[in-house]
């Protein structure tokens, strides 16, 4: 349904999104996870045709965002971080305006408003001025606005940001209810939110794609494993990467060895350890005992675990904030 290939977005001084690629299938709920400033909003804005990409391509339902923006916009419902509301309008008036703008025929408008008002639980606020609504209601009106034309794809930018805990639970419930009929991408910097609502997670950090996986796999990987980059060569003699891989796999505590590339007799691997085990010393000893040269041994950049820590820190801070409020 959504296909992003080699997408980059550069601003004058910084790179917001750097060469990311992913795909989202029909009907999936995908969590877009990353700390603040990771490039989540930028990616979403590219998908909604609000910003053009610097390079790479993105398409929704087979339509490219650059060459067929109108077709893409027809199929997308978008809730930006701050709901795009006109405070001087009544809720039903606002939904009518958005509905007409999204191309719903006039005769169908009242029916559609009734449906989304019920889905988003704003039926009792239809005649109220948007400017007078509470934050939670505004968020729900924003969500109603995004689904009024029954879009194939729903893009929600931090839908629970700034809500109180009760409203957060209600909003998550609402999003889960919308699943099935829509493909949903929601961004968040809160890990448990993804665990509770999404099937698949895309993690980005500083504009780069860190991981794409199902929620179960990812949480398993996140629970305290370590990833180490290893570079080895055969110290003058020819060396097959299979041999190295087998040897590395035999080291106690190693859960997975991924062969990255081989060049000029040098072999790159990424080694993942089991939970709570540090295997760097063992890897070094094992490589040296085999008579090879250990050219490099380092923990991989920002590991999933570090991101995970950042994310969980954000969640607990948010919860504390909520309790104080």
């Amino acid at each position: 349904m959504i296909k992003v290939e080699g997408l980059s977005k550069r601003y004058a001084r910084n790179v917001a999104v750097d060469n990311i690629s992913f795909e989202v299938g029909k009907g999936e709920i995908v969590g877009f996870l990353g700390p603040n400033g990771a490039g989540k909003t930028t990616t979403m804005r590219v998908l909604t045709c609000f910003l053009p990409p610097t390079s790479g391509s993105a398409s929704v339902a087979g339509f490219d965002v650059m060459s067929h923006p109108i077709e893409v916009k027809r199929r997308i419902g978008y809730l930006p971080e701050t709901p795009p509301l006109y405070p001087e309008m009544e809720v039903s008036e606002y939904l009518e305006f958005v509905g007409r703008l999204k191309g719903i025929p006039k005769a169908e408008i009242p029916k559609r408003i009734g449906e989304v008002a019920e889905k988003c639980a704003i039926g009792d606020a239809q005649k109220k001025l948007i400017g007078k609504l509470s934050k939670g209601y505004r968020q729900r009106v924003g969500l109603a606005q995004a689904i009024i034309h029954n879009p194939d794809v729903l893009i929600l930018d931090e839908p629970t940001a700034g809500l109180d805990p009760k409203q957060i639970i209600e909003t998550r419930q609402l999003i889960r209810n919308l699943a099935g009929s829509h493909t949903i991408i929601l961004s968040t910097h809160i890990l448990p939110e993804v665990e509770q609502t999404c099937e698949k997670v895309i993690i980005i950090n500083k504009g780069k794609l860190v991981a794409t996986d199902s929620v179960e796999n990812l949480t398993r990987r996140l629970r305290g494993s370590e990833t180490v980059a290893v570079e080895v060569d055969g110290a003058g003699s020819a060396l097959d990467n299979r041999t190295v891989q087998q040897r590395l796999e035999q080291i106690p505590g190693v859960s997975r060895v991924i062969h990255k590339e081989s060049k000029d007799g040098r072999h790159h691997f990424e080694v993942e350890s089991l939970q709570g085990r540090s295997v760097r010393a063992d890897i070094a000893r094992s490589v040296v005992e085999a008579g090879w040269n250990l050219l490099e041994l380092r923990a991989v950049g920002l590991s999933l675990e570090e991101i995970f820590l950042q994310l969980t820190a954000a969640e607990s801070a948010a919860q504390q904030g909520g309790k104080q409020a």
Partner: protein
Amino acid sequence: MTNILILCKKELKSYFVSPIAYGLFAVFAVIAGYFFYVITAVFVQRSIESQMMGRGFPMDVNEWVIRGFLSNISVIGLFIVPMITMRLFAEEKRSGTIELLATSPVTDIEIILGKWLAALALYCCVLLISALNVAMLFLYGKPDWKPILVGYLGLLLQGGCLLAIGTFVSTTTKNQIIAGTATFAVCLLLWVFDWVSYETATWAKVMSYMSVVAHFEPFAKGVLDSKDVIYYLSVIFLGLFLTARSLESLRWRS
């Protein structure tokens, strides 16, 4: 076309739910009414005087009342245009609703035309208030209605081009006050360009040609000159074109 109407209707509604429209009407009614009163009073006094002197004073209502009145309105127009256009895009940018418009299946041109037409419609409402004053002349005299029509066409064209410029200025900022002030400055500049028209140098001719007010003079007299119509239409086009470019550049920069 439907999209333009939807956007236009929404924009007009938001004028009328805020105090802007009513404040504008009230202020305009008072100022235009005052000018009308002064001009008419002078005219009446002169015609009485000329009758007492027994001289045949050329008592032409079109020439002595309507022409001056329409010229005054054209200048008042310079002051009300910034109030009409300042919020058009600045407010959408500030509140983030521009994201809703930009991600809806409508083109930039439709958004711009919708907003500009709404502004023009509000401006027409303002002009209608002045038409009440003119209508009064028909109760007591027999003015020729054709030059009046031409005069109002001129006001409409002049309004259209100032509104297009104001719409453009509004896309360049998030702050309504800045948008309003800058538009006012531009309007004023386009007015004072005319003040050098007594000079005969080429630069003065060019400057006074650029003045929106100078091009209104023939309309006030009831003369429909294609030169002036083309001037107004091309400024409208230029303003809307710049708006479209500016809106597009938002996407590349933001």
